[in-house]
């Protein structure tokens, strides 16, 4: 039985696990953006405090992903449900590129633009929302794109703690020593990553001004 035949035979499960994977990635990214963007802005406003945030998110990033899932298993509220735990781990993982790019994007705004804006009497709020964030959006979206691609890959590990997703195929294939089963998980995950990269890349290009 070829890989295509295997796909065909198991298509219902491939779809189901792909959807589950999308759900894990989607929720995690939504959380990561809604936490990472404000944190990134905070880093530009309170540099001293910001160093701690950047440091902490870098440390999280250095923990091997499998270990991060393992660590969180022992925490009380998270350990109860695998989906909850997986989403927490994936969110933590996605934070760093978003925080870093938000910070880099805002600090990368031409200083003369910022000086003119302040000199003309823009409040900090107006400066942020009318000038800095729109100008930083390209860089911020690049961070979101990187984070999304990473998350799609790392989310396959969620299956190891029983949170489902395309990792189910991969771990099953490993146990069965059957490449077709591994590929049934790996190929849809790779396609998903490529598609996300392409779509977010197109969005990013709409924010080029210079």
């Amino acid at each position, binding site marked *: 039985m070829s890989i295509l035949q295997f796909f065909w035979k198991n298509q219902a499960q491939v779809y189901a696990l792909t959807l589950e994977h999308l759900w894990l990635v989607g929720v995690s990214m939504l959380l990561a953006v809604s936490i990472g963007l404000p944190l990134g802005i905070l880093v530009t406003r309170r540099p001293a405090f910001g160093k701690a945030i950047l440091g902490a998110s870098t440390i999280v990033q250095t923990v091997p992903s499998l270990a991060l899932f393992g660590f969180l298993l022992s925490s009380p509220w998270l350990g109860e449900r695998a989906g909850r735990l997986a989403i927490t781990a994936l969110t933590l993982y996605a934070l760093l590129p978003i925080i870093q790019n938000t910070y880099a994007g805002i600090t990368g705004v*031409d200083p*003369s*633009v910022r000086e003119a*804006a302040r*000199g*003309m009497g*823009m409040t900090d709020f107006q400066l942020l929302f009318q000038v800095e964030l*729109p100008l930083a959006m390209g860089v911020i979206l690049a961070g979101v794109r990187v984070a999304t691609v990473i998350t799609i890959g790392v989310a396959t590990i969620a299956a190891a703690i029983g949170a489902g997703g395309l990792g189910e195929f991969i771990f099953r294939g490993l146990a069965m020593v059957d490449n077709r089963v591994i590929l049934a998980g790996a190929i849809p995950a790779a396609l998903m990553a490529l598609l996300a990269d392409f779509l977010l890349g197109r969005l990013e290009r709409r924010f080029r*001004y*210079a």
Partner: protein
Amino acid sequence: MVQEPDVVIEFREVSYRLDSGRPLLYDLNLQVRRGETLVLLGRSGSGKTTTLKLINRLLEPTQGQVFVEGRATTDGDPIRLRRRIGYVIQEVGLFPNFTVERNVGLVPRLEGWSAERARARVQELLALVGLEPEQFATRYPRELSGGQRQRVGVARALAADPPLLLMDEPFGALDPLTRAEIQQEFQRLIQRLQKTIVFVTHDLREALMFATRVALLEGGRLVGVYTPEEFRRVSNPIVAAYFRAFETDRTPRGGE
């Protein structure tokens, strides 16, 4: 009110030093009168930009006080202060994500003008700085030449009709021909507008062209304040050095 009514800006014993402790400005006492163009002349690092930024509170004095319209700049809301002061810088600092129209109309919009009134004002200002409104209003800054950008920068500073204009080497980055053109137009413009202007430059010719008075700064200290005629006659080694550097005739000429 403590001061004469025609004084718009007053520096009283103003010093400014960086957080590192390095002083940039020492004990500055200076008055700017209504309707005049005071040129701050000095070399790089002389403290002229620092002086300018103390007026719209982009910097705050570490000692002394700066008064604008009789009120200390540190006393009150900096946003309100800045909205009444036009600000033009060498790098222009146009917002690359805004069209020319939105750039020029920014302060009026922040001040809550109606869209109609703001648009009419933008048209008027673009025409004033020599840019055809129909042709330029919808363009983005990247689609403009250096000279056109600075024209937009001047229009933007004038948008909400501020009584006071601060200009930091506005024409310094332009090529000589464009600069000469804009300088001449600007000279006509300031005669028409009757604004109080503080103008920073290191260019002696430009200083003598616009100034009602020249304030010469050197190493963070005010050397003196002179009318252009006085400036040509004064016997001061720093002044003499300027004339040598610019190879300009020191004898007073009429009309300038």
